[in-house]
């Protein structure tokens, strides 16, 4: 029996007179891959920004495990188990891969200044655990051999994977990926495809996905929401969306 993880109701975001998102509702259950699609400028990323606390939504509720998170600060939301990636890769590019992974675990570490200065047993243990978790996730995404490289020197596909690993190491419940396949070649997209399915099936994570690569979206999604011009247009299973005349119209225009 899969439980409701994220429940968004009537989410509205206004910038002055501009309504960027208008009454979007969506639900993500445990161990589900849910996609949000829509033409460029439809407001998909704005929805992400509202959910992750970068914007405070004008109206509507965002419930994570029946707890209201709309209005919380970004870092408080990510500490509750909702983390995201970005449309453009945002790594700490001058730091090494492993350091990227350790920064992500900041709140799991012993950040007390004195225990760090004197290397107390508790500090060492937590630091060791963080290293092990980091190594584990680097292995999962196939970056273990690059652990001591500068993140900025990795190839684009590797950077994308590192960004996902960096999110996973924070032990989230819901991972939000903003166009993870953008700029990847077909081969890398296929690897990403497999990685996302593995995250759901093996690691029991729910994923909320924004993507333009329809092959990827249709292949892995359990449920799809379509947004056009900030308003919800349709939602349903991949096959339903594929054949929905409104969706086709929004993407291709009318004849």
């Amino acid at each position: 029996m899969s439980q409701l993880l994220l429940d968004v109701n009537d989410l509205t975001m206004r910038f002055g007179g501009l309504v960027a998102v208008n009454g979007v509702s969506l639900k993500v259950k445990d161990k589900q891959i849910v996609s949000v699609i829509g033409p460029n400028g439809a407001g998909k990323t704005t929805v992400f920004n509202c959910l992750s606390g970068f914007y405070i939504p004008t109206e509507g509720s965002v419930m994570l495990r029946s707890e209201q998170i709309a209005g919380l600060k970004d870092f408080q939301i990510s500490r509750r188990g909702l983390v995201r990636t970005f449309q453009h890769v945002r790594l700490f590019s001058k730091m090494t891969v492993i350091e990227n992974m350790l920064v992500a675990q900041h709140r799991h570490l012993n950040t007390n200044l004195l225990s760090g200065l004197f290397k107390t047993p508790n500090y060492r243990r937590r630091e060791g655990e963080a290293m092990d978790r980091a190594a584990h996730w680097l292995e999962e995404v196939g970056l273990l051999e690059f652990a001591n490289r500068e993140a900025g020197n990795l190839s684009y596909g590797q950077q994308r994977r590192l960004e996902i690993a960096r999110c996973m190491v924070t032990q989230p419940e819901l991972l939000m990926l903003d166009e993870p396949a953008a700029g990847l070649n077909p081969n890398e997209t296929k690897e990403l495809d497999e990685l996302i399915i593995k995250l759901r099936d093996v690691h029991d994570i729910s994923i909320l996905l924004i993507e333009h690569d329809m092959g990827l979206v249709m292949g892995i999604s359990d449920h799809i929401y379509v947004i056009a011009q900030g308003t919800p247009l349709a939602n349903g299973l991949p096959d339903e969306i594929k054949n929905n005349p409104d969706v086709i119209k929004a993407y291709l225009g009318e004849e």
Partner: protein
Amino acid sequence: MTHSKLYSAIFAAGITFVLACLMIGIKLDTDGTQLAIKGATTAQWFWILGGIAVVFFSQLFSRQIDGMFSHLPKPQLGKLIPAQAKSDAMKPWLIAGAIVILLVWPFMVSRGSVDLATLTLIYIMLGLGLNIVVGLAGLLDLGFVAFYAVGAYTYALLSLYFGFSFWICLPLSAALAALFGFILGFPVLRLRGDYLAIVTLGFGEIIRILLNNWTDVTGGPSGISGIAKPTLFGLEFTRKVKTEGATTFHSFFDISYSSSYKVIFLYMIAVLLVLFLIYLINRLIRMPIGRAWEALREDEIACRSLGLNRTAIKLSAFTIGASTAGFAGCFFAARQGFISPESFIFIESAIILAIVVLGGMGSQVGVILAAIIMTILPELAREFSEYRMLLFGLLMVVMMRWRPEGLLPMKRPQLELNKQ
């Protein structure tokens, strides 16, 4: 060779002409009781024309000249340091050797050299502090000297009004400077880059102007003099006992009085403080807080999305950086025995920033090296005192042209992973 090259060469030559005419070509002179404007001599005009020609042709052929210089090998300072694996094994020996040299050296050289070394150590402390704020956390701070001033005045005032000793004031100065860092941190939390730089610049000036005008307490422009020197477990380094019941250093050990004891003693304190700070900051960099500072410099938005509280991280960088300056300030006041707002002008902030940038942002060894160069070079160039600032500027231009990453760029720590 394009037209734009020719235009830029003519433009540069024109600017040189205007500047040279104003600065060298025309002179104000006193003629009896009146001011008279005098032209330059023929020889000077000749030099001016020569200079203009040099500028014109170097602009015109700048690409060729750059091409010529690009064949020159760039200085590879990194190679001076042995490879990673070797240096790891040698590290404790190198550090021990350096400390021994630091402690023995002052007994073999002149008093002036020791004094200069002490000044260098003060700049090292300041550089290490600003390195946290600018080099690691990426927060451009142009008013760092304010915290230095807070530290210095804390000791001067506490010693003047309440007779507190140097050793008690040292942590108090650091704490008060940290408090000021914390207070400044709040309004600037949302600012970055240029905006932050302007606010901190203003803050530095506020502190200086406050010290200058609060005459009742700080003595205003005339400063505070006669600040007590540090003592060694109550032993004074003066010829005669200053406070009732105390003993002097030379009478306690029954040796004859020499003023160099005091200089060497101050130097030793500075060495201890610097070693303490290096150890402390070295630990901090490798701790979660240090990594968070760097992450904040790299990408603030990514930090927020990963659950890092940027408020806490920025404030901690400001606070710890400021307390280091407070430390240095307290020692400075004790060494000088006299402080006035004159010591805490903007150019000091600029020099400390230059130390951090020249050394290599975030790199501790680089900062130490740059601090040494920046304090010793002006002393060596004393004979060219008129051209000192000119050389100083030239050095920076050359450095930024050839090694924009600094003398010794920061090395990433390599971490050992337990393969599963």
